[in-house]
């Protein structure tokens, strides 16, 4: 158990260090996420009340699209110079590799969210920078990333690479988006924890199912 976590943290640390040195992905993903919000502004120029209603939806469209962009990159660096073979020949379980990759992408998504949420709150003057919404976003990001990582590992091994991730990933995360958007909207409309409890339960159930099952079958994705 201890070696599992040590290995997972080491892989996550490697990914983060790699990104910190190049800053390639984070800068383009952040810019892309903010651009999504800008496009939204021009697509729906609306009054404050309507903006409050659609703000959670805008946030999750921005997260999904920028998430696809960054998740696509999660395994592409490993394809270069046979890094994947090196990673697989490490004396650690495949589960630790999955966990490490998830941790790395989770931190990455947190950075994106930490920028997009306050920017959205400022640009559209809506109260999305609020502890309950941040909590919902964190909870939903777990399932979001754990589904994304297994499909990302799968898509780099296909001919079409970048094309494959969105068509697999988007339909599967529909429940996460429904629940995150509905519960955030309820909070913005003045709801309390009691009102969104059911949505949070579904998000937790999704997180549990879509973390454990990919953890179990990840070894079938990366074998060769």
């Amino acid at each position, binding site marked *: 158990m201890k070696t599992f976590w040590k290995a997972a943290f080491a892989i996550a640390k490697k990914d983060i260090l790699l990104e910190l040195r190049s800053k390639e992905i984070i800068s383009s993903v952040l810019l892309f996420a903010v651009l999504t919000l800008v496009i939204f502004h021009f697509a729906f120029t609306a009054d404050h009340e309507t903006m409050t209603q659609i703000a959670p939806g805008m946030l999750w469209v921005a997260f999904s699209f920028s998430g696809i962009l960054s998740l696509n990159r999660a395994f592409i660096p490993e394809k270069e110079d046979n890094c994947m073979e090196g990673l697989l020949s490490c004396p650690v379980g495949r589960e630790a590799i999955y966990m490490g990759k998830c941790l790395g992408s989770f931190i990455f998504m947190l950075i994106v969210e930490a920028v997009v949420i306050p920017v959205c709150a400022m640009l559209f003057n809506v109260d999305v920078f609020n502890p309950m919404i941040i909590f919902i976003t964190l909870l939903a990001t777990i399932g979001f990333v754990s589904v994304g990582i297994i499909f990302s590992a799968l898509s780099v091994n296909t001919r*079409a690479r970048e094309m494959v991730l969105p068509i697999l990933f988007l339909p599967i995360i529909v429940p996460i988006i*429904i629940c995150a958007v509905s519960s955030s909207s309820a909070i913005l409309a003045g709801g309390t924890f009691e009102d969104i409890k059911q949505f949070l339960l579904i998000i937790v159930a999704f997180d549990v199912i879509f973390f454990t*099952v990919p953890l179990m079958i990840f070894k079938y994705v990366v074998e060769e």
Partner: protein
Amino acid sequence: MRTKIALALGGVLMVVALVMVFIVVPTEATMGNIQRIFYFHVPVAWNAFFSFGVTFGFSIAYLKTRNPKYDFIAESSARIGIVFTTLILLTGMIWAKPIWGVWWTWDARLTSSFVMWLVYIAYFIVRSFITEEERRYRFGSIIGILGFLSVPIVAISIQLAPTTHPKAMIFNDGLHGTMLATLLISIFAMFVVYFLFVFLQYDNCKDAYEIAQLKKKLLKESE
């Protein structure tokens, strides 16, 4: 042989089901004739779920045993499942237009069927992107497993919103005797048709596999 049996049985049952639906069963009081589509809509819906369930089961079996035959069954079943899901959506829309006044609403059952349809279309698109056989079976199985798990969660998450889709009446005596009999015969007929299609599709997959193997062998010999 099994294909012929399924064809004969399916053919007879389909004729019986059609006679029941269009001649024997009484017209529903409030909706009128359009309600007859229900005897088609419900059977395809049940069998669509069943076929994706079969895909799920045989995907697990493939990953455990690596027997390509299991993947052929999983793939064939998913293919028929897509046909059935398309029919669910189409028959549902034909029914919805006169009854609800719209072709489509984002209701729980409609949305989850639609998402299910998208997941399995992705299943086939991704498979077509993979040239290497063994990898195609392996990745197909992974999508077959994860895709099936997502369907109930989508249904539950939208269920929180009020639904206008008619509730399942079969379990609470909501159906008149003849109507229930017609529905059950239609379900069984569709079930046999499902097996007929799976048998045909399975033989297709197996033949394609054998041809590919023979080609490989010939190429090796000619070198």
